[in-house]
């Protein structure tokens, strides 16, 4: 049932319209509706356009009254000063390292454990799945302080691992949810054939199953990317070393220190957002689906 609901919702993003009972005629009403949509689109988008525009201005221009318009001169120097003296380059690299490692580790763990849960035969497979899925309800707040103390005890505060481990842990429930339901829909014949050919379990998993999992691995990876790239609370608490800060924390501290340097700060914000937008533009449907999976868990 849940499966069906999810399928329906997913497929509804693809084909044009089966709702659309009112298409066709151009009427005054439909013009009003489109104008409404455009106004909302401007409201949703204008702050970002403003961000990009101001990121090219200098203080005299911003504080001299030209806040809203196009910059008189497109100052790329704001970007170089954000990257170099604002350390945004370092923060960017840290974010890439943390996010990439999180995605790789969580994808592997999600794939292996989902496979063992859905396909392999052992007593506690159901229970294990339930325990993982319960994790979807856990808010990160409640784990903040205990995690801080645990990480301090095992001496990995102020290392990349202090973020990677919690990020992986929080990626697991949703990922296992997506992956197990995907695995249920894959026929077992291929694996059986491989088994008859004498493959062992690891060969079956890595050579046969893993390549089949690619589409749902992509869903999971997008989800994990967004949550770790943007995460603030853990990153703000577990890292003090300015050399290790990720983009969200780094930019916050930069904005605190150079409060009057709008250009470079906003340039930093643009740099932090750019990868997300670059992923989003070609994959917008996929990204939207990936973020909806959490809601249709029923």
């Amino acid at each position, binding site marked *: 049932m849940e499966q069906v609901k999810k399928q329906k919702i997913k497929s509804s993003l693809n084909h044009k319209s089966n709702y659309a009972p*009112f298409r066709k005629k151009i009427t005054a009403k439909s013009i009003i509706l489109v104008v409404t949509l455009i106004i909302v689109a401007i*409201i949703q988008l204008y702050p970002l356009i403003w961000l990009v525009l101001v990121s090219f201005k200098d203080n005299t221009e911003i504080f001299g009254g030209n806040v809203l318009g196009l910059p008189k001169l497109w100052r790329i120097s704001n970007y170089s000063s954000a990257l170099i003296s604002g350390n945004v380059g370092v923060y960017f690299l840290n974010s890439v390292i943390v996010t990439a490692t999180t995605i790789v580790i969580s994808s592997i763990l999600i794939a*292996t454990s989902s496979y*063992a849960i859905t396909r392999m*035969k052992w007593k506690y497979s159901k229970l294990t799945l339930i325990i*993982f899925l319960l994790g979807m309800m856990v808010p990160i707040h*409640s784990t903040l302080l205990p995690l801080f103390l645990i990480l301090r005890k095992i001496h990995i505060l102020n290392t990349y691992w202090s973020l990677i*481990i919690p990020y992986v842990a929080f990626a697991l429930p949703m990922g296992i949810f997506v992956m197990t339901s995907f695995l249920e829909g894959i026929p077992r014949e291929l694996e059986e054939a491989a088994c008859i050919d004498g493959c062992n379990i690891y060969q079956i998993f890595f050579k046969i199953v893993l390549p089949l999992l690619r589409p749902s691995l992509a869903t999971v990876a997008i989800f994990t990317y967004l949550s770790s790239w943007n995460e603030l*609370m853990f990153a703000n608490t577990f890292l003090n070393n300015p050399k290790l800060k990720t983009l969200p924390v780094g930019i916050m501290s930069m904005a605190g220190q150079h409060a009057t340097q709008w250009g470079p700060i906003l340039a930093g914000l643009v740099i932090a957002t750019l990868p997300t937008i670059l992923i989003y533009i070609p994959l917008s449907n996929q990204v939207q689906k990936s973020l909806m999976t959490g809601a*249709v868990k029923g």
Partner: protein
Amino acid sequence: MDKVLKDKKAIFIFVFPALLIFFVAIILPIISSTYYSFLSWDGIGKATFVGLKNYVNLFVNNTDGFTKAVQNSFTLAILSVVIQLPLALLLALILARGVKGEGFFRTIYFIPVIMSTVVIGQLWMKIYHPDYGMLNSILENIGLGRYAHAWLADTKTALFAVFVPIIWQYIGYHMLLLYAGIKSVSPDIYEAAKIDGASEFKMATAITIPLIKPILQVCVVFAVTGSFKAFDLIYIITNGGPLHASEVPSTLMYNTIFNKYMYGYGSAMSTFIIVECLIFTLIMGKMFNAKKSKED
């Protein structure tokens, strides 16, 4: 095949690492957090067991304004349900109706959802800037300069000023959920209604909205529990200030733990947030289920 699938060693290798990380970073912390909430502890000295005293202090003595913070989070929850969701529903209905550039609008509306809260927070701080911000510039340009304001520094406006970006950011998310729900309604139903001469408004209220109730429920649960847990944007934009005017439970919790080092007291706050979310989710589930069985 069976023998291969019963390989104990392989099962262990496949599941154990994930389970270990999950246990250390989620299960263990949840249990410890609840335990800490019964302690009086500064994190360094000796912890003493104080029973429910922390919880009593939250509400009875109420020296640091926890009840005010809870009230604020309730205000946010109500605003989300009465402003954010109806707007999202309206947009979803218009979009699903089939306009040119459907996918384009959907893509645009969703952009704020995928952006970092730090970016959004900084952006809105600049928008609200008393001297050079976009909001005041616009007000002056359209001749309403007398309303220009230090939005975030005024205890009267700070709370609502900080709620606007939160509501703004997630409209697209709710819109998309509702849109997907509307799209999965069978078109035959509308055909029948059309033949009966039902107006568009009538169809939306009598057919579409009742049929997407399960998704509406999900949206309400998300909007409300999201408001109870709201942290990032408030922490970035005002950090609960000025004078606790925009404080919510999670910002108070963060500052209680990491600035005042009251670990037990702060944990009581975080436990309260979880319990509050859990109770609301259960009530919503009950309410909708009760209605469902009545209708059946």
